């Protein structure tokens, strides 16, 4: 066995953290919390070089959030209100994160407004003021295909949504960014700020309480576009951003 991942809750991972190489990594993160942001180590992968049989340690790093703090301390280890709280907190963080970085950005009007709206939607979803009655017939149409396990795909028809989706597509093409856009990125947040995005975000929060939207992608081209909202099961995946 030449490659093993140790979750940070395991004694092995904690022992590796306390090794001289682990300590350097911890110091690096802990002593520069302001410029680096508050980070946590989620686990360690140990693997062996074939040539010289020496060991490599890959320390995996994530942003500290209420979510993974709960995971680490075990306080959120069961489904239920804790998960809801954690997801709300994640949405709230995404909203405030993108919102605060807006000050230094110079976004075109429609796009900038969409980002603000997206942040507002997530803030409202997380405060519980934007939840739907999902049994209402209005939401039981063929317009979108709900597969809560993986994703929600919705073809874009509204002209404002089209503009935003096109802007996102051109950005993805020009900077080679991942086509899956995190809510912590302006592009992902702008897509939440579309009619489709705000509806799906509210629906997920209303109907499936331990799942959350992790990323959004734009599928298709200028003629026919769809937004694909990637849904993650909180317990199965945990946060990955």
């Amino acid at each position, binding site marked *: 066995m030449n490659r093993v991942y140790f979750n940070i809750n395991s004694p092995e991972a904690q022992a*590796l953290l306390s090794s001289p190489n682990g300590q350097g990594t911890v110091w690096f993160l802990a002593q520069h919390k302001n410029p680096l942001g508050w980070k946590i180590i989620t686990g360690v992968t140990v693997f062996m070089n074939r040539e010289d049989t020496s060991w490599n340690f890959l320390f995996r790093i994530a942003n500290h959030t209420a979510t993974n703090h709960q995971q680490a301390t075990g306080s959120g280890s069961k489904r239920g209100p804790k998960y809801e709280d954690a997801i709300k907190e994640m949405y709230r963080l995404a909203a405030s994160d993108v919102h605060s970085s807006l000050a230094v950005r110079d976004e075109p009007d429609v796009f900038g407004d969409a980002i603000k709206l997206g942040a507002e939607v997530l803030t409202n979803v997380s405060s519980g003021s934007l939840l739907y009655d999902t049994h209402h017939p209005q939401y039981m149409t063929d317009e979108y295909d709900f597969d809560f396990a993986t994703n929600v795909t919705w073809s874009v028809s509204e002209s404002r949504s089209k503009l935003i989706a096109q802007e996102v597509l051109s950005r993805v093409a020009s900077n080679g960014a991942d086509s899956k856009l995190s809510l912590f990125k302006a592009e992902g947040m702008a897509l939440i700020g579309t009619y489709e995005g705000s509806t799906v975000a509210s629906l997920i929060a209303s109907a499936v309480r331990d799942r959350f939207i992790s990323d959004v992608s734009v599928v298709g081209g200028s003629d026919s576009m769809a937004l694909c909202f990637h849904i993650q099961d909180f317990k199965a995946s945990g946060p990955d951003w």
Partner: protein
Amino acid sequence: MASTPDGSTGRTYQPTAGKYMNIYNPEIIIAQDIYSPDHTGTRKTPEVKGQDVIPFKQWSDVTFVIWQDYCKNQPNCMQGVRGILQMSVVNPNSKTTAEQAMTKAGRSSTTG
């Protein structure tokens, strides 16, 4: 590390042959070949140790300064670190810990 004047004390420290060879990439820092001045200083003749080793000597501090420089003009780069890879670990304590962890994983089959 070569003999280096330390800005804070004005003192020039003796070389220790310590070195930190890192590879900087977006999201990951790879520590490829690292020997701390505290360790290598003791192999010098005469030994360089204790207060005679330059205070700015920790991997974490040296790496941070270069990471900061690497990330300048790149928005979200500094905060974007998602992994630190310590490659070809040579420290005996780290090696022993890894071997014990891997042996234990083998016994309990907690592969990931």
